């Protein structure tokens, strides 16, 4: 077999494996969300299907698959159908550059961070097109809100990542993790704490999750952009939303918590060869799970922002805060104070 064919087979297998893992994680994330929110509200969440309700995601998926997809007669049929795919594909494609463990990344490209920024921005087109193609006022309102919100928070997110860039000196996600190696004290969350907060909150806003879910806003505009979607088309939107949550959780843990490296790296008293000291996928999974939990925790706690408050937070607070912190960081790098060495 020629080399390029071998590569093709290997890469296709890797892509399939990662995609299937992400989709399975999405399934259990929905279960996790309902459990977490249930417990926070004094309920117990789904517990009927399978052991402890673990079959619930699959029951939901089967229900959605056998439901009819209704395409409104006044809608733009073509855009209506591809809009869900447009929001799902970027959410899955971003996983190509995410290093899952030391040495495993599908595409080890140097501009990985740019790729991530580009693809997370493309994801909003699915929402916009869905709102437009549906030809319904609620969907259109949802899409408009979503567009304005994404524009505002994309900037803050980008600026927060500029801080990470300055600290790590690389756009490659693997190198960003490598530059944070050396245990908990070397993680960027400590010197870049404001940027971390801005990045994570912007991430919540980017994924249209509560309290920033004005694009859905079920108490105001029915269901926002996906008001006319049903069956599989709705399932794809659902999948995209949760894939984005996992993605933001993964990115936050990579940029600020050093991804797959261990917090106890270099702790001599843990002993030589202690697995807790070794970098592994386990640590990335733990961090991702924690951030997913925070997503649901936030959802269970805060009421939805008013639209003008979202705009105020994005433009008048986050962007100035990030700019100030980038300036502070620039001075620190220039004066050679701080944990990084460039």
């Amino acid at each position: 077999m020629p080399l390029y064919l071998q590569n093709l087979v290997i890469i296709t297998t890797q892509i399939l494996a990662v995609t299937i893992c992400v989709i399975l994680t999405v399934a259990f994330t929905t279960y996790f969300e309902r459990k977490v929110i249930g417990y926070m509200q004094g309920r117990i969440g789904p517990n009927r299907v399978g052991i402890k309700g673990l079959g619930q995601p699959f029951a939901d998926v089967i229900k959605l698959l056998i439901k009819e997809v209704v395409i409104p007669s006044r809608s733009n049929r073509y855009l209506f159908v591809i809009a869900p795919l447009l929001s799902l594909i970027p959410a899955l494609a971003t996983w190509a550059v995410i290093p899952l463990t030391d040495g495993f990344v599908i595409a080890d490209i140097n501009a990985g961070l740019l790729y991530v920024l580009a693809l997370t921005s493309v994801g909003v087109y699915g929402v916009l097109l869905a709102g437009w193609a549906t030809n319904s006022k609620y969907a259109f309102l949802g899409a408009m809100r979503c567009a304005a919100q994404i524009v505002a928070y994309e900037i803050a997110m980008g600026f927060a990542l500029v801080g990470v860039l300055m600290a790590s000196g690389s756009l490659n996600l693997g190198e960003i993790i490598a530059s944070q190696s050396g245990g908990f004290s070397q993680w960027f969350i400590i010197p870049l704490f404001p940027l971390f907060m801005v990045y994570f909150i912007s991430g919540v806003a980017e994924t249209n999750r509560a309290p920033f879910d004005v694009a859905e806003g079920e108490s105001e505009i029915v269901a926002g952009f996906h008001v006319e979607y049903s069956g599989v088309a709705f399932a794809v939107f659902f999948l995209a939303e949760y894939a984005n949550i996992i993605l933001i959780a993964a990115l936050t843990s990579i940029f600020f918590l050093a991804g797959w490296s261990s917090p106890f790296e270099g702790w001599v008293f843990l002993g030589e060869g202690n697995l807790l000291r070794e970098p592994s996928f386990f640590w990335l999974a733990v961090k991702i799970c924690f951030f997913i939990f925070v997503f649901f925790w936030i959802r269970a706690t805060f009421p939805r922002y008013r639209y003008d408050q979202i705009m105020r937070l994005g433009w008048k607070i986050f962007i100035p805060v990030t700019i100030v912190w980038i300036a502070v960081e620039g001075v620190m790098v220039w004066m050679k104070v701080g944990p990084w060495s460039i």
Partner: protein
Amino acid sequence: MDESWTLVNINRLIMKKIKNYIKTFLLWELWQGLSVTLRNFFRPSTTIQYPEEKTPQSSRFRGLHALRRYPNGEERCIACKLCEAVCPALAITIESEVADDGTRRASRYDIDLFKCIYCGFCEEACPVDAIVETRIHEYHMEAPGENIMTKDKLLAIGDKFDNLITKDKAADAKYR
């Protein structure tokens, strides 16, 4: 407190403003909210899983109706129509006749469960404790017309749950 524009007051106002500003940036109130939900996360849930678990029920629970008999099997109801008169929802319809043994009996005793508001007045009004409301609340209708409880159906319920009804009435008797 004196709210005049003295230097001390202005100073205090400025300090308050700065304090609020710092509080806002530390997301102080948001952390407070998050701590509330986190505390509730570790609290046991109050869910009662209905078909398997049930909430405690009073012996006075007013559910499905029943007509009772005397221990010797004789119907209690004498068709006095007091329950029909007192019923605020006009759910009871009674027709009377003279039975073979010369006593006054109900030839028809219908309760429309859709009209009934389960107030228990019929039970209060009844001089012979014939009509009672049992603690049965898990019932349903499948076809039109099943909402009308006829005399036969009511008597059948009374026969079937005689023990339960007797026990509940005995438990409540001392408060009447």
